[in-house]
């Protein structure tokens, strides 16, 4: 394994691990705040129990998210010093703001977790709201920094160095809004369905548990609307990518040649040597229609850049397809949930619906990982598109396979422990 590949793998493992905790850290506080608010209104002790259980879960996840996030802030430099040296002054702004948002989150989470009997009920609920808001804000700031790597703006390039930099313009880069919207919704979808799915599964065995019904309802309340909105956000993102990141779109859609009236390829395995996609289903004009809302529009193919500037087409295509498929499934389940709620049906009597929700448990998280892989792998070989190649950003230190192995083992171990603790904290007792 080359040092570059080891560095990329270590970054990938660190991000893949952290993103799960980040996503839950954004959405879980919302669930616990909803439960607490319902408790304050109804005095139904089950809601208080839920709020406390979810708070304990959040405590574990937030702690691991905080330390793995620290690792990432260092790894930016430890693995990619040339990137940070160049980009630091221009994308430091969202990172600084993220620092303060994270600070606010940590402070009020401390108050929420440990302050049940130390502050007034109103202040306690407000602390939870602040955790939810600052969690979402810190996620948005980090995504803005990532968006800049995809569509860098706010500078003039002079001899490979940035001149006349404008960090505000950099924050307002074209990818910032579509990416931040898509990612934030994804956090609510993944977490909402993750929680709802677990309780749906338990309800399949024990229909009468009020605890699990309440938990399912709050999980769906957070997850379902976001899942229904997500295809719209996805459309905004896709149309943005078509205009501003044509190579990435071409890789996601496995479109080798630029063409008018491009078809949409569902599934299939791209063969980069022969420049064709095997086994895929082609929907005529589909891609032009989706990407530009015009069946006759020209869609750029991979042929607009030399072969050595292609990302890994099969992986990007596969990740993208997985994300879209799972997102579609979740949106449909979301619509179903909305329909049942509108008709005021007792969801626990709908076994097929409960199964659909139970199956959705991991789907949002897999979609998040797949979507992140599509956007990150789709950017390669660039770390800053058009400015700096990933290979030129890596640290000169040799032997990175060692740190890659160490962090992989560390994160596997932590992941196993967290899963076990959450299972015991939330699920096992909920069976009772």
């Amino acid at each position: 394994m080359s040092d570059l590949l080891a560095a990329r793998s270590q970054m990938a493992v660190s991000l893949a691990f952290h993103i799960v905790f980040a996503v839950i850290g954004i959405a879980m506080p919302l669930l616990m705040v909803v439960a607490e608010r319902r408790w304050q209104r109804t005095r139904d002790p089950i809601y208080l129990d839920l709020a406390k259980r979810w708070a304990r879960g959040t405590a574990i996840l937030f702690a691991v998210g905080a330390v793995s996030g620290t690792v990432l802030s260092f790894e930016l430099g430890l693995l990619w010093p040339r990137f940070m040296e160049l980009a630091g002054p221009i994308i430091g702004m969202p990172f600084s703001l993220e620092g303060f948002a994270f600070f606010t989150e940590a402070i009020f989470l401390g108050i929420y977790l440990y302050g049940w009997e130390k502050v007034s009920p109103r202040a306690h609920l407000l602390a939870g709201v602040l955790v939810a808001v600052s969690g979402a804000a810190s996620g948005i700031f980090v995504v803005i920094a990532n968006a800049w790597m995809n569509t860098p703006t706010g500078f003039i390039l002079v001899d490979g160095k940035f001149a006349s930099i404008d960090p505000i313009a950099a924050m307002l880069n074209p990818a910032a809004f579509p990416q931040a919207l898509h990612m934030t919704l994804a956090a609510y979808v993944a977490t909402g369905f993750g929680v709802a799915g677990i309780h749906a599964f338990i309800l399949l065995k024990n229909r009468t548990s009020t605890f699990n019904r309440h938990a399912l309802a709050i999980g769906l309340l957070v997850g379902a609307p976001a899942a229904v909105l997500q295809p719209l956000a996805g459309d905004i993102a896709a149309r943005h990518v078509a205009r501003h990141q044509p190579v990435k779109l071409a890789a996601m859609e496995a479109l080798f040649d630029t063409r008018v009236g491009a078809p949409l390829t569902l599934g299939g395995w791209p063969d980069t040597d022969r420049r064709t996609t095997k086994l895929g289903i082609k929907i005529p004009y589909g891609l032009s229609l989706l990407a530009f809302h015009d069946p006759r529009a020209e869609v750029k193919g991979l042929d607009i850049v030399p072969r050595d500037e292609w990302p890994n087409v099969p992986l990007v295509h596969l990740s993208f397809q997985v994300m879209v498929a799972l997102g579609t499934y979740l949106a449909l389940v979301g619509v179903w949930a909305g329909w049942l709620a509108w008709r005021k049906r007792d969801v626990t009597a709908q076994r097929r619906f409960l199964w659909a929700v139970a199956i959705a448990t991991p789907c949002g998280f897999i979609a998040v990982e797949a979507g992140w892989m599509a956007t990150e792998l789709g950017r390669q070989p660039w770390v800053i598109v058009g400015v700096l190649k990933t290979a030129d950003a890596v640290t000169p230190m040799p032997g990175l396979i060692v740190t890659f192995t160490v962090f992989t083992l560390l994160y596997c171990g932590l992941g196993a422990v967290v899963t076990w603790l959450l299972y015991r904290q939330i699920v096992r007792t909920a069976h009772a």
Partner: protein
Amino acid sequence: MTLSLPDLLAGIILAALTAYVLLAGADFGGGVWDLLASGPPPRRARQRDLIAHAIGPVWEANHVWLILAVVLLFTCFPPAFARVAIALHVPLTLVLIGIVLRGSAFTFRSYGGDREEEKHWGQVFAVASLVTPILLGVAVGAVASGAAGEQGAGSGGQFYEAYVAPWLKPFPFAVGLFALACFAFLAAVYLTLEARDRDLQEDFRLRAIGAGVAVFVTAALGLLLSHQASFVGRGLVGAPWAVTLHVLTGGAAVTAFWALWTRRYRAARVAAAAQVTLILWGWGLAQYPYLLPPDLTIAAAAAPRVTLQLALGAVSVGAIVLFPSLYYLLRVFKRPSSAPPTTPPIPPR
């Protein structure tokens, strides 16, 4: 010397590091006292409970100071960040592993199951709390001794020469031990105020005095070896402000000892914090105007002016949100005579 914008931001980074040392440093120190808990088993358990209650609500917020310092460093002084990240890759990676293990083990212990499991995570937490400050100190000592200078910036060379030898020296390790002693000292002093009963107060008073002695011993060791960081060493001895600084630091140290001896714990807390702050700022002043001795100055490493202005703006706006929130957090949990914080147990279902 006039204060330029880069100087101001370097000062803010040092202030963030100071806050990290005074707050998170004490949390690490708490872990050390967890490791060194002594006496009959019930007494040991009470010491550990006190430490866990003191750290629980605040450690994550305290930890963010480090992230803030790192983010400001790569925003405002990117070449310095890149150099440190290359030259000190190995110790910083070890610090990160320590941070991950310390934080997660502490949380796993708090939310763990039975006593046996708690003990297991407690050990991981305590050992990580002992090792991480040493490595942090090694990184600081390495910077002060010029390891992240031009020739030490990992430009080629064998792995050992370029990435290990620059920091694997007595002086950085002396600074590491010194950092550990300082953190343990701060923790013990703060814990005298957190303790609700006499016995525990006395336990931590004695620990504070012991750690205070360790601070002196390790400081002396560092001074003995300071020829390895001749650049900073000269500043600490020869600069016009040196005498004033040493007098102030010594004064704070003596005050802390006197206050501990006479059981004036509030005064001890102020004096201990002042002592450690003065030491940190002494380091900063000694290497001024260099960010990374012996060759990279604050001015040379600074990002373009517009970045610095925006960073200053972000810090100012952030401070408006941050300080009232922090004050509220500490008021809720660190008010004297309040009951220990609790996460109420979930009633069995």
